[in-house]
């Protein structure tokens, strides 16, 4: 019995029991459903073993939406708890677990996955190629992400959730103050999915550098591809820092080392530094692809080319370099003195310059355009004003002396939500609506889409603007409750109302998906938005091989030019196309990594050694495997092309 005790949740409440039941029922329902409809084979052949970037993108998308709801439920519970003073809906411990998982799930498992989804689906199409450089590694990336996400999520019902904040500052996150396995989950789950992200970074850099369509020089790449390239470069240089920090944290917790302890020479400030050396670039890993998406959507629906293409590229490069030079602004109050703080204040505020350049370039893309208010465009237009407010408050936070008053308050919370939600989440939803027809062959409902936009846009302001005020009135973040005499009640109540509005907005998006799956017409053209880049030059749905003939590119907007000026994109003859074989290996490795992580979390050393050997065997098998892929013959390609992309 002692062995099993470790898996029990330390302080179970009704929410946890309810989740246990829900998880069990859902699992049973899925298993029965798959068996009843005889879908096991389909699931295995078409999804679990796929190495197709489009399908991997869609799997990322589904995961991201699931995680959005997990993180969203956390958010609603937090806002409900703080809506009135001295509330007893949640206890301190529950609240601490919830805001911790909200942060981690939203950043690592929702936003990152959403970006991966869109990059996976769009980038190879946009650069006119047939897949990524390493299709099988791409699948492995996904399954590692998935293993990490699952591991993190089961912490809720097995052993206890992490409770020391998404930044997990030591010594609070050390074993002295966080005794449950929660923080072990944090360390290991982030490590596993982080490795997946790093592999994606390597994969996409290679893909974008080496596999662009003939004629597409770097300065002819679409802006989303540019943003993806820069993002992945940041990933490759930032994620190893996280890897090291997490390894140290894991060793402190499981092997009693003294990296971040308060005795024997440990240094708690080292964690804060390493975490933010990764953490700040991470913010730009999220926001740069979003900028890329906005550039695509704004120029598509303003019916104009992107204004100041070159300065858009250079400003992104500037942002990516500056992103590594500002991490100290996350702890101006640690006491490094006026000189260091002044330097990092200036680098922080300097980021406003390239960001401002981008805002003005978007405004001037709209100027002289012919603006069509579709759902993706509404999100992009909503982004500009709200993000501007989030951005200027960022400059305010960057001023060290003033930050001593903003730090750790709701003012900060308001700032980063008003940057991340319009910056990243709006872009993801906009991208979802924009590329949905390419993914699934039908459009999402515009009416419902616009409703959801107005709900979300107004609710975001309603939720987060009051936090500026309560922050300046002295409300610290991460407080599970406050007394009535503080006067924070009214602001928090407004935030709660806003949060409900946000929930309705997101529910509308899900309803929109359901509605459109059922009722949306299926006979849409391959280019329903009258767009400008190469992904719209393929058939809908996109055939396995993307392009029967690789396109030849002469400008940044090759597809647009082919429509307007009649440039020929496809000049060569159809030849047999080489395709990679599906493989179950990435999925199996994902499972083994999950077991590996689970064993690590609970210190089950024998299982850990066995699963490590398992991983080694997989790598060895991969090394010996002879997999040359297969060729699609010309007549089959011609048949597929004739039916407009549909198989058989």
């Amino acid at each position, binding site marked *: 019995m002692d062995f099993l005790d470790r898996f029990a949740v330390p302080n179970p409440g009704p929410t946890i029991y309810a989740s246990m039941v829900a998880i069990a029922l859902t699992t049973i329902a899925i298993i029965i459903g798959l068996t009843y409809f005889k879908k096991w084979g389909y699931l295995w052949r078409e999804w679990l073993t796929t190495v197709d970037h489009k399908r991997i993108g869609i799997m990322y998308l589904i995961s991201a939406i699931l995680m959005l709801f997990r993180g969203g439920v956390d958010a609603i519970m937090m806002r409900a708890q703080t809506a009135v003073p001295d509330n007893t809906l949640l206890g*301190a411990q529950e609240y*601490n677990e919830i805001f911790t998982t909200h942060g981690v799930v939203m950043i690592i498992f929702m936003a990152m996955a959403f970006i991966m989804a869109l990059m996976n689906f769009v980038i190879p199409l946009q650069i006119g190629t047939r897949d990524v450089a390493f299709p099988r590694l791409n699948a492995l990336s996904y399954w590692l992400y998935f293993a990490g996400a699952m591991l993190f999520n089961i912490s809720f019902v097995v052993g206890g959730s992490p*409770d*020391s904040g998404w930044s997990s500052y030591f*010594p*609070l996150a050390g074993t002295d*103050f966080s005794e449950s396995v929660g923080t072990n989950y944090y360390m290991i789950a982030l490590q596993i999915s982080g490795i997946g992200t790093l592999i994606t970074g390597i994969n996409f850099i290679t893909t974008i550098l080496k596999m662009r369509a003939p004629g597409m020089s770097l300065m002819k790449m679409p802006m989303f591809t540019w943003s993806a390239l820069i993002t992945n470069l940041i990933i490759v240089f930032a994620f190893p820092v996280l890897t090291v920090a997490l390894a140290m944290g894991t060793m402190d917790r499981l092997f009693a080392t003294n990296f971040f302890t308060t005795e024997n020479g440990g240094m*708690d*400030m080292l964690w804060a530094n390493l975490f933010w050396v990764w953490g700040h670039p991470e913010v730009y890993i999220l926001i740069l692809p979003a900028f890329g998406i906005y550039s695509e959507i704004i120029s598509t629906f*303003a*019916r*104009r*080319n992107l204004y100041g*293409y070159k*300065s858009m590229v250079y400003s992104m490069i500037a942002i990516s370099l500056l992103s590594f030079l500002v991490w100290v602004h996350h702890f101006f*109050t640690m*006491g*490094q*003195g006026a000189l260091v703080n*002044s330097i990092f*204040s200036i680098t922080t*505020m300097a980021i406003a*310059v390239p960001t*401002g*350049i981008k*805002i*003005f370039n978007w*405004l*001037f893309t709209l100027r*002289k355009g*012919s*603006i*069509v*208010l579709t759902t993706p465009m509404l999100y992009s237009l*909503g982004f500009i*004003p709200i993000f*501007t*407010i989030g951005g*200027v408050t960022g*400059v*305010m936070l960057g*001023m060290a*002396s*003033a930050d*001593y*008053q903003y*730090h*750790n308050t709701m003012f900060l919370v308001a700032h980063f939500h008003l940057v991340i939600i319009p910056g990243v989440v709006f872009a993801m939803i906009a991208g979802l609506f924009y590329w949905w027809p390419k993914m699934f062959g039908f459009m999402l409902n515009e009416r419902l889409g616009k409703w959801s936009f107005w709900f979300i846009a*107004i609710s975001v*302001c309603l939720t987060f603007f009051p936090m*500026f*005020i309560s922050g*300046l*009135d*002295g409300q*610290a973040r*991460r*407080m*599970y409750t406050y007394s009535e005499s503080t*006067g924070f009640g009214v602001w928090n109540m407004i935030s709660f109302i806003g949060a409900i509005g946000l929930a309705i907005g997101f529910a509308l998006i899900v309803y929109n998906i359901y509605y459109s799956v059922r009722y949306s017409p299926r006979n849409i053209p391959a280019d329903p938005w009258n767009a400008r880049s190469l992904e719209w030059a393929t058939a809908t749905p996109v055939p396995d091989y993307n392009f029967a003939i690789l396109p030849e590119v002469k400008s940044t907007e090759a597809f647009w030019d082919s429509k307007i000026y009649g440039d020929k994109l496809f000049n060569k003859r159809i030849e047999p196309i080489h395709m990679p074989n599906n493989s179950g290996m990435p999925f199996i490795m994902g499972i083994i990594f999950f077991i590996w992580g689970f064993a690590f979390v609970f210190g089950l050393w024998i299982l850990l050694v066995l699963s490590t050997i398992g991983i080694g065997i997989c790598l060895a098998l991969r090394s010996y495997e002879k997999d040359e892929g297969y060729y699609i013959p010309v007549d089959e390609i011609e048949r597929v092309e004739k039916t407009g992309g549909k198989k058989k």
Partner: protein
Amino acid sequence: MKLKTSFLIGMFIVVMVLTGCEPLLVLDPKGPQGRTTANVIMISIWTMAIVVIVVFAMYFYIVRKYLASRQSKDYVPPYIEGSVKLEIIWTAIPILIVAFLSVVTVISTYKVESVPEGYEEEPLVIYASSSNWKWHFSYPEQDIETVNYLFIPTNRPIEFKLYSFGPISSFWIPQLGGQKYAMADMVNTLNLAADVPGEYSGRNANFTGEGFAQQTFNVTAMSPKEFDKWIRDIKSTAETLTEEKFDELLQPGHLGQSTYKGTHLEFSPPPENHHSKEPLKDNQEEIKNQKIIKDDLSNDEDHSNMKH
């Protein structure tokens, strides 16, 4: 447009609140450091308001004017590569704004990091240490210690020496000035001062676990005379802080306010590292010196008492 209205309402609320009758704590400073940061905040708000207004004006003008529904059917948007002149303008102006704010930041950061200007008196040193989930205030000069409340004389600079017996905490009295971390392996120095007598709230602002929300303390600023009287009262009434008693106080949990003679600094000295690179000896000597001064003072007091 809905966005515009909601924005205007938002701005209205902001203005109402900022100028309202019950001012926000941070913008209602009661000391020189708090005043400096409040001024910086207001400078930055107004500067940023100008930026926001310019961007919003351009945004609404452009979006309104170039809506497809307001244009003729055969309007074809032109191809425009960009404009070097315009791009230089919107690079240069933000650089100027950032440069201006940088100057403000650097000056004010140096200001709030040092002893407030115009306060010539020797700073009063108070060691503020956090433990889960309390604050311990040691007055080495006066040789007393309080828990969860702080009495300070007005118009005298206070030098807080911050450290922690547990997780990283952040010592914050919004109306007196900005916060700073209290950490287990290092002593941080925070210079504050109050120039208005009154009661202010202080708290730990950095998350420290379960009892974090209630880790607050009260600050009472009073005239130096009253402060001296308070010290004398404590000396005659409070019990002595022993090591056992202090260990008891360190146990995780919440405590009310309490007061002791003597400080924990003698038997449980603060961490050795200072961010200002002062070695350990200075620290210990400082405490010793302060004790000597204190002993002298109390001797004097004894004499004066005898006379009366």
